[in-house]
């Protein structure tokens, strides 16, 4: 039963991801990416990881992708340069990348299917709830939490400095 929900969501994820990398314009890619993230949030919710699902929607799809859209609109790109400004034939690179991807996928799949993963634990009641995650976040992992906030501060300062127009 659970598989029935899982497969469509997973299929949607993969298709959206493919649309991202095959999209003609950046906006197409961005919209596909938002779709992939929402599907992923659905999978998270299906996994009883409520907090992460909500975070995914709010931060990833809500803030980060909006930032992407801002920048795409700001740069006002006419089109992706697939037609014009072709350095060489891109096909050789695509072929090499595809081959590499297939190899990596094959190896990882081999490893996954060859492993013995038969006895899962029973989930507790409070698995993945906001209360539970918050409690652990503030007791066991409080130091990474604080460091993460410093990291965000640094990123903010860096972004402002980099994106400022030069004032002479």
């Amino acid at each position, binding site marked *: 039963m*659970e*598989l029935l929900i899982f497969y469509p969501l*997973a299929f949607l*994820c*993969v298709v959206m*991801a493919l649309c*991202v*990398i095959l999209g003609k314009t*950046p906006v197409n*890619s961005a919209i596909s*990416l938002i779709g*992939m*993230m929402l599907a*992923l949030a659905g*999978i*998270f919710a299906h*996994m009883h*990881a409520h*907090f*992460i699902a909500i*975070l*995914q929607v709010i931060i*990833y799809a809500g803030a*980060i992708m909006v*930032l*992407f859209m801002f*920048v795409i609109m*700001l*740069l006002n790109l006419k089109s*992706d*340069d697939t037609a014009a*400004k072709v350095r060489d034939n*891109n096909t050789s690179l*695509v072929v090499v*990348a595809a081959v*590499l*991807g297939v190899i*990596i*996928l094959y190896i990882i799949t081999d490893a*996954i*299917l060859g492993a013995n*993963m038969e006895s*899962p*634990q*029973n*989930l*507790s009641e409070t*698995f993945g709830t906001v209360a539970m*995650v918050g409690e*652990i*976040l503030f007791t066991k992992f409080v130091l*990474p939490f604080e460091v*993460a906030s410093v*990291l*965000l501060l*640094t*990123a903010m300062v*860096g*972004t402002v400095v*980099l994106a400022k127009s030069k004032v002479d």
Partner: protein
Amino acid sequence: MVPLSHYLLLSAILFVIGVVGVLTRRNAIVVFMGIEIMLNAVNISLVGFDKYFNNHDGQIFSFMVICVAAAEVSVGLAIVISMYRNKPTINLDEFNIMKW
């Protein structure tokens, strides 16, 4: 019950798609999106293992990943804007003056 291998397989597929996207596309912003796909794939894998072991550590890690992704995207897009100011293009093939 969804077996763990399904989650891991989904994670692997998404990761490979992300890698191919980074290698293939010429637009800097689309390359960034490929990186975001890779990060999301890792998130799935982390939470999947959490479900398997009835633990919360993976979700906290996933939380940190999202946080880092946010920081990285903001700085990266600032760099893209700076790149665009120098040369009015973000085709990565155009930026090759650091050759030998």
